[in-house]
């Protein structure tokens, strides 16, 4: 295999990986940006998205229908979580919210194991996506390319939603000056709920997209959670363009490290994070928001 083909392989792999990181991290960022809740159960919601997709597909429903349904279901689960445990915490210190969502993570992980068991699961994808196509001499799976298109579409859709629709603009404004939006007569409570549902639904999208790429298992959310933390901390908490850049950067670094040095791939990623934060504590664009 030629060098170009390998380079294409690596580039596409890193884009696919970075794309999934991005959707998870953006969901986390939106919830944080709007309601100042750092949801540590986000990785578990991502796993639930993947499992829901698996169940829907294995019932014989078309994969694309599952792609729509799974995020909706995860969004509903998000609504339930928000109402029962997150909303009562709104007035309390952020540390308690963090610990609460940590507990929620264990609860959801346990629930996943209880419902779907320990064994890894595979999502059946439509036949045409199981093919490979030739790009610059490498055979690349069609499904991975579909994933790339899906993540790009979700991100573009999200940008349009935030910048072109009225609701989106209110949300954006609420993330910068919540007091003002509140004064204008918008119910901040609905904004919090909306942000949480949107964030969870994004985790669901990432789950169903990533499920068939790899495999689904109860612990899939843990590493994703850590990786998306690295993404949002490097990108700056609450910064959208920071997250985009950081996700693609981490995707690339991790893929390159796994290809060339294998052994210390993840250490490299964490080291990079440490170095960036030592010099840029507010993230790459200095846009990080802290309490």
């Amino acid at each position, binding site marked *: 295999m030629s060098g170009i083909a390998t380079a294409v392989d690596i580039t596409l792999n890193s884009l696919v990986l970075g794309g999934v990181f991005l959707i998870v991290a953006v969901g986390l960022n939106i919830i944080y940006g709007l309601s100042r809740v750092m949801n540590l159960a986000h990785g578990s919601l991502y796993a639930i998205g993947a499992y829901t997709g698996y169940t829907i597909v294995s019932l014989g429903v078309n994969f694309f229908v599952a792609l729509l349904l799974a995020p909706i279901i995860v969004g509903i689960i998000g609504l339930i979580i928000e109402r029962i445990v997150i909303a009562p915490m709104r007035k309390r210190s952020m540390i308690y919210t963090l610990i609460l969502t940590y507990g929620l993570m264990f609860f959801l992980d346990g629930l996943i194991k209880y419902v779907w068991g320990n*064994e890894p699961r*595979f999502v059946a994808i439509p036949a045409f996506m199981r093919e490979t196509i030739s790009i610059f001499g490498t055979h690349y799976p069609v499904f991975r390319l579909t994933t790339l298109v899906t993540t790009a579409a979700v991100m573009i859709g999200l940008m349009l939603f935030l910048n072109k629709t009225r609701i989106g603009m209110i949300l954006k404004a609420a993330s910068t000056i919540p007091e003002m939006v509140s004064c204008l007569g918008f119910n901040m409570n609905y904004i919090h709920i909306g942000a949480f549902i949107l964030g969870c639904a994004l985790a669901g999208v990432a789950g169903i997209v990533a499920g068939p*790429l790899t*495999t689904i298992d109860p612990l899939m959310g843990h590493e994703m959670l850590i990786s998306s933390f690295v993404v949002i901390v490097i990108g700056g908490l609450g910064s959208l363009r920071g997250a985009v850049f950081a996700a693609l950067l981490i995707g690339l670094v991790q893929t390159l490290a796994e290809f060339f040095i294998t052994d210390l791939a993840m250490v490299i990623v964490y080291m990079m994070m440490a170095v960036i934060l030592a010099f840029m504590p507010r993230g790459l664009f200095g846009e990080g928001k802290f309490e």
Partner: protein
Amino acid sequence: MKKLLVVTISMFSMFFAVLMVVAQPAAAVEPVKIGVLVPLTGIVAQGGLEMKYGIEMAAEEKGKVLGRPIELLVEDTQIKPPIAVTKAEKLVYKDGCIALIGVFSSGVGLAIAANIDKLNVPFLTTHVMTTEFYNLHPLVFRSGQLANDQTAVGNVKGILSQPELKNRTYYVIVHDYAWGHDGGERFIALAKQNGIKIYNESYDKAPTSTKDWSSYISKIKASGADGVYMVLITNVIPVFAKQAADFGLQAKGVKFVSGAAPGPVELEAGGEACYGIFSASDWSWDVNNPISDKWEKAFFAKYKTIPSDAAVHSYVGAMNLFNAIDKAGSTDPKAIAAALKGISFEGPYGTVRISAKDNCMRNDAVWTETVAAPENPFGAKVSMKVLKTFKAAELGPPE
């Protein structure tokens, strides 16, 4: 007042704690307690469950040892060595178990073996594959899955016997821990002696938590190797195989040889992507002999799970242990250990004998390929077809 309440509450909780410990039902005849350590949560939970089934089946069949009923006390190791050691201490010091059996991973096995002087009970593993278990400790035994060296011998002999596998270059990828390293190194050393080409002698070590294998698969594609030797935890085999199939690796004619035989439940999960994986194993349900046929039917009827090699060698290991206790005539650890040396059991895959020389078992094995399953009572769609049988002496190590 507050202090008083705190003190009252803590007194009550301590009282109940003591109550829970002390209040254990007294049995009419004191049973012989055996501690079973298997992972029931975590990445290899399925394998642990199958081991537990195998050991339970042996206890039920054996019924009594030393004229007393067998009582199995099962603890979840969570495949975490410190937890496993705590559980082992609980089983021995608190519950009074006279022997420990089971253990899935090499790390857990070695951690328990390191504490065996303190625990002072015989410990027989039915699944640990590391070669460090040979002659490890007078109280530590293995009667179960083929060890890494035996598997490597089986796989190399198997590859040489198969013209389509013989002249390939193998890319070696292992899971990054003791068992994976050991398995990879054993195979590479033996393959080189036998003229089998290895692409990467400093083999790839993938973290056990790897979900996305695309980088490794890209490396295999870039290397141009036409064979892959993998030493991966068995339930990852279908994951790897499936992702490799997504990238069209198998379609391009790359063949897979595995350092650990995949379990039937895992093969079902992987489906078609799992066809064409070669491996040496002590048993698969494709083995045909009266004992094996009877055993697999009984197992399936009882547990509704397709019988796996993990279940069968745990069954055999437990039988060896129970028979040794009977032979020892007492629950004295040294007497049981002496009885375990050289003991053998005639089971579904022939005679399994624990060597008196190094405390590890010798048995016949098979060379298998995963294929679309023939008509079978288990409803399995993938099966490990037996291509060749090895005699125990062929696999070594010499005694």
